[in-house]
């Protein structure tokens, strides 16, 4: 027996001031076995709304393009199974689909994430030895590989209250870029020092460790405990630890 599900999807564009201007539109589609949310969006496009905007690429959780808010929770549409969504959606209610709310709107489900690309350019790249064939252990690699598994879906940024509620995009780098910074700072061969930047320009102090970012990460990166807290500790040691500052003055440490 075929089953139908109704999606209530945000449709609209920003007005001249950039404020989202649109409406929620209901679409009812027939379910096939094993569908994910993105399949339903594609079915809506194929059946009734070819101009419904949504980003996607790999449809396998590897590229981080199809981020959206499904029933109010930020997730990858390609990795969210309809079986789970139907279970969490109250009987008789539609499934609510909106674009990521922390970013400006482009149209429908597409958010403008250009902020992330601009910010990334300000982070100094790796500076390692000129000689080829670097040698380091798998244990050292493991620590950084966790950060390297980030797919830049921006779900963490969308969820972080410093950005979402307080809109501090100019003063705070957000979880994705602390992961990037942790990757560079803990890279076994990198000689760069970005701690002053982490403290001042990127505003790590604003994070008060609510772990919302970690909760939504589809790559399962332990953002708060493994990236943000160690960076905070390094900043504290470098700039606020009196013994460390004294040792530095005396030339006992770098």
């Amino acid at each position, binding site marked *: 027996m075929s089953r139908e599900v109704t999606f209530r999807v945000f449709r609209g*564009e920003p007005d001249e001031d950039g404020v989202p201007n649109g409406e929620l539109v209901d679409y009812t589609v027939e379910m*096939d*076995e*094993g*569908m*994910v949310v993105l*399949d339903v969006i594609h079915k809506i*496009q*194929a*059946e009734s709304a*070819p*101009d*419904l*905007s*949504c*980003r*996607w*690429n*790999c*449809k*396998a*959780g*590897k*590229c*981080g*393009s199809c981020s959206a808010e499904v029933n109010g929770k930020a997730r990858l549409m390609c*990795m969210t*199974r309809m079986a789970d969504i139907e279970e969490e959606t109250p009987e008789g209610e539609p499934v609510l689909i909106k674009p990521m709310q922390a970013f400006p709107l*482009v*149209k*429908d489900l*597409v958010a403008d*994430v250009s902020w992330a*690309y601009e910010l*990334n*350019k300000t982070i100094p*790249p*790796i500076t*390692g*030895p*000129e000689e*080829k*064939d*670097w*040698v*380091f*252990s*798998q244990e050292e*690699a493991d620590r*950084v*590989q966790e950060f*390297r*598994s*980030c*797919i*830049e879906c921006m779900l963490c940024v969308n969820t972080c209250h410093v950005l979402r509620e307080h809109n501090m995009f100019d003063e705070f780098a957000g979880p994705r870029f602390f992961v990037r910074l942790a990757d*560079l700072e803990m*890279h076994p061969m990198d000689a760069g020092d970005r701690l002053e930047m982490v403290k001042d320009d990127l505003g790590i102090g604003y994070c008060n460790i609510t772990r919302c970012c970690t909760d939504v990460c589809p790559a399962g990166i332990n953002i708060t405990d493994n990236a943000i807290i160690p960076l905070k500790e390094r900043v504290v040691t470098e700039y606020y630890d009196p013994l460390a500052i004294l040792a530095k003055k005396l030339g006992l440490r770098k």
Partner: protein
Amino acid sequence: MTDVRNHQYDVLVIGAGGAGLRAAIEATRDGASVAVICKSMLGKAHTVMAEGGAAAALANKDPRDSWQTHFRDTMKGGKYLNDWRMAEIHAKESPDRIRELEQWGAIFDRIPPGLKGADGKPLKAGTISQRNFGGHTYPRLAHIGDATGLELIRTLQDRGIHSGMDVFMEYTVRRLFKSDGRVSGCFAYNRADGTLHTFQGKTTILATGGITRCWAVCSGSWEYTGEGHALAYWAGAEMGDMEFVQFHPTGMIWPPSVRGILVTEGVRGEGGVLTNSEGERFMFNYVPEMYKDEFADTQQEAQAWVDEVIADVTATQRRPPELLTRDVVAKAINSEKKAGRASEHGGVYLDISWRDEEQVKKKLPGMYHQFKELAAVDITKEPMEVGPTAHYVMGGVKVDPVTQESSVPGLYAAGEAATGLHGANRLGGNSLTDLLTFGKRAGEYAAKAAAEIDGYLEISQTDIDAVVAETLAPLNRQEGENPAKVVEDLREMMQEKAGIIRTGALLEEALSDLDELGARGEKTAPGGGRIYNPGWHQALEISAMADISRMCALSALAREESRGAHTRDDFPVPDRSHWGKVNSVIWLEDGEMKIRHDPCPPISAELRALLDASDLSEEE
């Protein structure tokens, strides 16, 4: 008058996957101003989906490896239709491309302490580790778990953004312009805001990836609609070997919504076994003559090889037949299905669950999550169901093996968009080092050529007006089909008539169906406006998909033999006397698609000596 904005750059790079980014990095290093024009956002290109690894004869994991062996393996895997000069350059230069990637921040998996090579000498702990893959004699693939593509693209992205290149994200290129017989620039529209753009470039590099979205079951994203191939063809470039489309043997088949998603060959490299509905490990029945000496013929011997691999000691046993080349494994799975021994949902079983649970999660984390989340299958406890999926096109723009320039002056191609390296069948792991090696070369030579040119060639206003009108036409049509329907019909048709097993009759039908589908494609009505309108974008993709599909069907019809990825039911064996010695060439002339067959370039005696003598004597 429609507003069209013009841009000028020394080098235009179309595509921002591995080949495009590597080309752009090289071109900027040589001082060129570079525009990277890409359909998706930066870092999302198809390269991100590569899983198993990048093949390079670093000889870290097995000191017996060398560029010569890599060259031999690549030629053998390609059934000797490869351009041997590209195979030589690739085998020689890949190791340096990997080492350089490491210096740009890529963190490959490492060799643990305490390992010994075949000669008993210790391997160097902490250097880049390498994994076994189909068709590679030794463990050769540098990798990061099963997410090598992500590491590669992120590394190039983070390097690239500091190199001075300008990136035009979510722009689709619709046409290459020619002036005085040279490619002088291109036309693109911005997918996000619908604005129209011309780019003048002294040289242009196509790094647009593949075409496998033309088949219903494929491992490719929406991007793989083949515009790059079509752009080159429309500009008059010669296209080679378009009949060779690789069906990867292991794609997901259940549930329907995930059909085609790739299951990495790494599963088999780590000891995964293929069985049919009767529980038989069928690959032992499909070892081709040319590989008989190199593969185990008993389960015991195959298991002994896997035990050595798990113990991280140098393999002394012959490898399991699951690691035969992709063309062989895909056809074997197809034969099992035909013989009525398919799995529950019409594939075969791939089982890695006999290995330690933690090891599976560590070595294949992506596969573990993919099956758990999309199919509710725990691969550490139960087998996967898999079947062939359209994965890669060996054919593409014919290029000079050294400079990557096409037959049209000023136009270069690299990566999957180009042809030559892989012949009739690509070895797993060779595409990532293909795009690094030849992406670098394309960037280098395109920048050098651009440096010799003063100023920009004028683009004809008539040409601009024509492509603008064509681009906006779907939005002006009030009545017509949903473009999604035409695309779906095209993909189903290609799957059925130009898929893994082909016949002359079906290919003839495919060609006539494509006339009709192409005509339907010109009449779709997506509705909506120019702001981020996927229906409009899809309507514009159809002409490229139809022409690409036609190239494939036409060259598949002409090749009356079975070789590598091309299998004809009506010509089931390789024809060594003729077809084994020619490459197909397709080009556009007076509005018509033409085909001819050129002899493979003669190989030097020195390199010929590296090849498998018994294969070659059979080829005589």
